[in-house]
């Protein structure tokens, strides 16, 4: 794998994470339990889609094949997506959505903090921009996980179930492969083992305050960021997200 190929793959991972999670979160628009949460979810989705435009725009430039951020988002099929399995998981109930958000936000904040020091100036600039927005996402998702976890019997039960369901998708974020190694060697991406220990400290604090119990097993599902095997959910999501381009190829406005 050339450095350029690894860089393209890495940028797809960053952009596909924000694209897929942004789309998932936007599915709540008009359906959230209260108006303030509906607005917060829509704002979060909007930030993530905005960050996607920057990541996938840069990916298209690096690839040099003339593909725009829109082309990459709307004209690829499941096997070409490089997002983590965590972010493609369905919304479930409100608690499950916020647990997914919190697990991703902790990772996202730690990752972007490191990427602001990347040897690649474009990546450092996008990371610095995105980090400001994502800090607000983490504030809200962690507060909500704590509030619901340490809430009523019913909300606690739902948050524990969400944590049990989603925990097997955490490990993939920190399991390095050839792309991660190449980016770490190029002083772009951080060492994922060190990132994991910072993630663990933060998430342990949140879960303890939320009176939730972290599952014993660190078994990790994998196959999202490599594109080897996504869960069945991504394909269903893309049929919605890419509907317009599939029905009317090349449509613009």
């Amino acid at each position, binding site marked *: 794998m050339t450095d350029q190929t690894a860089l393209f793959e890495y940028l797809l991972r960053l952009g596909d994470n924000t694209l897929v999670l942004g789309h998932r979160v936007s599915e709540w628009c008009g359906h959230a339990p209260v108006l*303030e*949460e509906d*607005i*917060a979810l829509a*704002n*979060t989705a*909007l*930030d*993530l*889609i*905005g*960050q996607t*435009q*920057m990541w996938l725009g840069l990916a298209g430039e690096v690839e040099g094949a003339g593909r725009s951020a829109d082309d990459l988002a709307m004209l690829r099929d499941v096997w070409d997506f490089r997002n983590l399995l965590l972010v493609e998981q369905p919304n479930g109930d409100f608690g499950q959505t916020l647990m997914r958000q919190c697990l991703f936000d902790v990772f996202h904040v730690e990752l972007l903090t490191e990427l602001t020091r990347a040897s690649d*100036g474009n990546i*450092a*600039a*996008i990371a*610095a*921009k*995105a980090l*400001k*927005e994502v800090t*607000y996402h983490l*504030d*809200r998702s962690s507060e909500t996980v704590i509030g619901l976890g340490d809430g009523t019997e019913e909300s606690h039960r739902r948050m524990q179930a969400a944590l049990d369901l989603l925990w097997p998708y955490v490990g993939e974020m920190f399991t390095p492969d050839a792309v991660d190694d190449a980016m770490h060697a190029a002083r772009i991406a951080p060492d994922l083992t060190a990132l994991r220990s910072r993630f663990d400290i933060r998430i342990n604090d949140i879960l303890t305050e939320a009176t939730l119990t972290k599952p014993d097993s660190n078994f990790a599902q994998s196959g999202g960021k490599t594109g080897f095997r996504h869960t069945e959910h991504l394909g269903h999501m893309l049929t919605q997200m890419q509907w317009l381009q599939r029905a009317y190829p090349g449509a613009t406005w």
Partner: protein
Amino acid sequence: MTPDVSTIWGWLDQVPDPEIPVISVVDLGIVRDVTWEGDTLEVAVTPTYSGCPATSVISMDIETALHDRGVTNVRIKTQIAPPWTTDWLSDKGRAKLADYGIAPPSPAGGPDACPRCGGAHLTRISQFGSTPCKAHWRCDDCLEPFDYFKCI
């Protein structure tokens, strides 16, 4: 004859923000640079939030305003570094926000006073509001809700 850049900054200070029209795009601190490159005027604009839908409207409004003043060749350059911060809001802009009923950003992380009654007993309703740049607060003195332009 090409107008000098200080004249152009003055014109841009009359282009309103599309979401909060009482302040200009210059007050907002998103116009980072204005330079002549030959006979083309280059305006560097930085987005507030990366997904803010107003960004493309702002670029269009700037182009239209400059075309109306007779500047035909305008190039809008998007500049993301250093990232936009609410520290770049002008003092004039902050005062206008408060007059308009939006509490200006404060380093304390929350509004200093209710923009309606000046009350100091305030409760945060949500960190997210009607646009990406605002949070939703309530004054416990006059009991009115209000927007807070949040720090970033």
